[in-house]
């Protein structure tokens, strides 16, 4: 009985705190995306003639983001019936956009006019509890800033 209560408590905590954190994160992502809109990001560039620029530099943005207890529970449940796991989709979306933003903001501070040949990578950061644990992922975005 006590175990059940603990699980419900954790689920409620994960749901409430997780939702608040996610909403705040999305709000911050949207504001920063608008602010950095003027600097375009391209994932092409490797096979094109080199662009004209006075300076070029590598920029890397990275973030480690974790799902919450509630989402992990939902995902575990979804695995039984298969199909889309909605709980994790927003997590990966947030991670990618955050990593891209960090790369962009870094490039803008340096004076970049655009960022070309951008690559995105995702890696699962295993936790010490093995597969049963809560998913955390690392997303990195890197590209060449030009000015």
């Amino acid at each position, binding site marked *: 009985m006590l175990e059940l209560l603990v699980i419900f408590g954790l689920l409620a905590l994960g749901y409430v705190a997780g939702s608040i954190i996610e909403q705040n994160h999305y709000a911050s992502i949207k504001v920063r995306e608008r602010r950095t809109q003027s600097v375009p990001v391209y994932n092409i560039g490797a096979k094109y003639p*080199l662009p004209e620029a006075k300076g070029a530099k590598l920029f890397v943005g990275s973030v480690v983001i974790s799902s919450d207890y509630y989402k992990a529970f939902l995902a575990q449940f979804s695995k039984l019936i298969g199909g889309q796991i909605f709980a994790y989709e927003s997590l990966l979306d947030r991670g990618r956009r955050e990593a891209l933003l960090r790369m962009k903001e870094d490039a803008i501070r340096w004076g970049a006019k655009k960022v*070309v040949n951008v690559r995105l990578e995702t890696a699962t950061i295993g936790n010490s509890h093995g597969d049963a644990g809560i998913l955390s992922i690392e997303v990195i975005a890197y590209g*060449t800033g030009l000015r």
Partner: protein
Amino acid sequence: MTYQSRPSSRSAIIITTLEGVPGRTITQHFGLVQGSTIRAKHIGRDIAAGFKNLVGGELHGYTELLQEARQEATDRMLQQAAQMGANAVVNVRYSTSSVAQGAAELFAYGTAVRVD
């Protein structure tokens, strides 16, 4: 060509993800250079992250840890490039893989070149 005659400090090396450096021409290719490092999380960070796992969101401790590690891998790559006498590393790629429980390998590779 000796290493001494072509000193290039590591900080002066240009890194790009393109096939060259814009506005400069490649005069010499040195081939692939790479750097990697394997890092494990330490228990303090793991416990903190364990709590953070419940509510979700960014795990700042891990973000920093991996950033440091990636910097280390990049430095090792640059060191190799500097030894060859390169002043730029082009077409750089990164990859991360978890090699063991709780440990990750950060890997950086690219082509060392000399540009005017």
